[in-house]
């Protein structure tokens, strides 16, 4: 064979040869193309989550994904597992019901900041307080992306949105601190730029026996970035420049301020009895032993 021919680059036949994504077996490919905008970080977060699911050793036959409403809420629709797309803010109570009905299930909540911490905020603090054995993955894009970029409970101070054209005068949540104060037993924050650390952390979160919470910072170039003169790349550059990794940092030191620095890492990883364990201990087994004694 002519060595020249060997080196000849062959154009892949895009029409006849379907290109496979390595996670195709976990995706409802019939629903692709997805709705996420160019430059959006949810796809990376979702991909990290699926990759972590695959490598975590969890029985995927017994794994379900629950989402609320919003761009990240589409996750449940794209994963080829049993999944539930709930009403706005109610992903965690749906997930709680599933876990209580069938404690053998691995229940993953994949949703956005608006869904989990504004309209559904109450459910988050109570699931964390109970140490309900769920993995809550929150894609934080600092805005309500799906409805066009309104101010959210996570929008940085002074950021511009469609409902705060002159800048947000409110302070955003420090989500890891909220999770810590509420009683979550695994708490971490990464960005989509830190895809490997994120995937590894999600794996640990999935394997964790109690309530685990992973916040994933993500650009929303179309509905958040555009109004703040930040392209998707600008935001990633900021993730690179402003983020420092500090595992076990105090949750009180994790406020979201891009003017200073953003701390990433795994901040909390402790064990305490889960809701189902304490329930069984207090209500089920106690009754059973009493019955036996009688």
């Amino acid at each position, binding site marked *: 064979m002519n060595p020249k021919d060997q080196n000849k680059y062959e154009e892949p036949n895009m029409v006849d040869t379907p290109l496979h994504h390595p996670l195709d077996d976990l995706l409802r490919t019939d629903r692709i193309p997805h709705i996420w905008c160019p430059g959006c970080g949810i796809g990376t977060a979702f991909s990290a989550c699926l990759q972590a699911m695959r490598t975590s050793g969890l029985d995927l036959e017994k794994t379900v994904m629950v989402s609320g409403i919003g761009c990240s809420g589409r996750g449940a629709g794209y994963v080829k597992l049993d999944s539930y797309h709930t009403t*706005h803010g109610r992903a965690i109570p749906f997930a709680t019901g599933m876990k209580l009905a069938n404690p053998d299930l691995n229940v993953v909540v994949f949703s956005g900041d608006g869904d989990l911490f*504004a*309209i559904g905020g109450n459910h988050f603090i109570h699931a964390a307080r109970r140490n309900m054995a769920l993995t809550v993955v929150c894609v934080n894009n600092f805005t309500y992306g799906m409805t066009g970029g*309104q101010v959210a409970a996570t929008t940085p101070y002074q950021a511009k949105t469609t*409902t*705060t*054209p*002159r800048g947000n005068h409110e302070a955003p949540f420090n989500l890891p601190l909220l999770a810590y104060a509420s009683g979550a037993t695994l708490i971490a924050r990464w960005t989509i730029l830190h895809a490997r650390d994120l995937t590894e952390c999600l794996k640990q979160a999935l394997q964790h026996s109690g309530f685990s919470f992973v916040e994933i910072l993500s650009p929303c170039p179309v509905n958040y970035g555009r109004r703040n003169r930040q392209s998707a790349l600008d935001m990633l550059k900021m993730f690179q420049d402003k983020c420092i990794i500090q595992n076990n940092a105090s949750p009180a030191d994790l406020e979201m301020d891009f003017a200073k620095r953003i701390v990433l890492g795994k901040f909390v990883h402790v064990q305490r009895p889960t809701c189902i364990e304490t329930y069984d201990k207090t209500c089920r087994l106690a009754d059973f032993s009493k019955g036996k004694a009688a």
Partner: protein
Amino acid sequence: MHIIESGNVAAAYGVNLARAQVIAAYPITPQTPLTEKLSELVDAGEMNAQYIPVESEHSALSVCIAASSAGSRAFTATSANGLLYMNEQLHWAAGARLPIVMCVVNRGIGAPWTVWNDHQDAISQRDTGWMQLYACDHQQIIDTVIQAYYLAETVSIPVMVCYDGYILSHTYMPFEIPDAKTVDMFLPPFTPAYALEPSNPANLNTVTLPDIRPDVRGNMAPAYMEIRHNLHMDMREAIDVVADIDKKFKKTFKRGGNPYIEPYRCDDADFVAICLGSLSYQLRDVIDLLRDEGLPVGVMGLRLFRPFPDQAIAGALSGRKCVIVFEKALSYGNQGALYADIKSALYPCKSRPIVHNYILGLGGREIKTAQLIEALRKSCKKPKEIGDTPVWIGLKL
């Protein structure tokens, strides 16, 4: 001034002209551009109001309830599941007699999810004690928002201004923005029937007992049943108030004249189609086509759904051969809510028309001219062949 803008922006300008003082809202499609426009007007200093970007619809109406209790003119807007999430506070606002105005940008409700238009959201909140006005185009949206404050504050009952999601909210039409000074003359500042006042502390809406009892001053105070009876009676009286406001509005702005029902080619019509919202304007083209065929048919758009203008309905419809009710909502397990109300309004009439019910456009299903023509032709030519059961248009089973 005439402009070309979307229905949501028309609503926002109406709220601005009404000089609402407190706006609390949560994003939901297709309402969002309305409150975005309001936040823009507030931030630009064009509107002297507080805009509160709350964390849920339940909170949005709670904020409005508190603002209204403190004597402010309050506004919120929502759609579909957002309206349902407000449900507890809807009943509260009506029971507490607070003249809040809310735009409901009509959208179908889940499950399964839909973002497109039908009327199930507002119709399902029919019995909350709110008044419901429906707009058919952008001019009516802006005019109705202004009238709604007048109505709400006259009878101390909250009002929903309903208009079709996307069909009106996101389409662009020319409309006139009334002159602000004239609106100020038409709609005076809000003087609450009662309001929280630190110098005269009050405890509002406390627990009532099943029977009446003396209050702290020894006067007999109404109990729950009396308070609810008064709400009902005041809402019935509001039917006349709607007509008075329409008359005054027409005198000032030269628009209106049909407070309850907007008829089109109905004078000599033996057959009358009736519906809520923008569909009645779409049906006008269908009526023209059927008139060309020689069918004596007309259409009425119902503007006021609660309180239900039963006398006006009976007056407009009795003596006709057939009334055809088109509905984008359903009382599941029975029939269309509007259909049932219209039949009930016609029951005391001496000459009762046959009434038909068509269900269409649920979850944004396209409504085609040919389908409307076919349905109306059938109702006109063989009225006795269609029974009391709702007929579904465009269903693909």
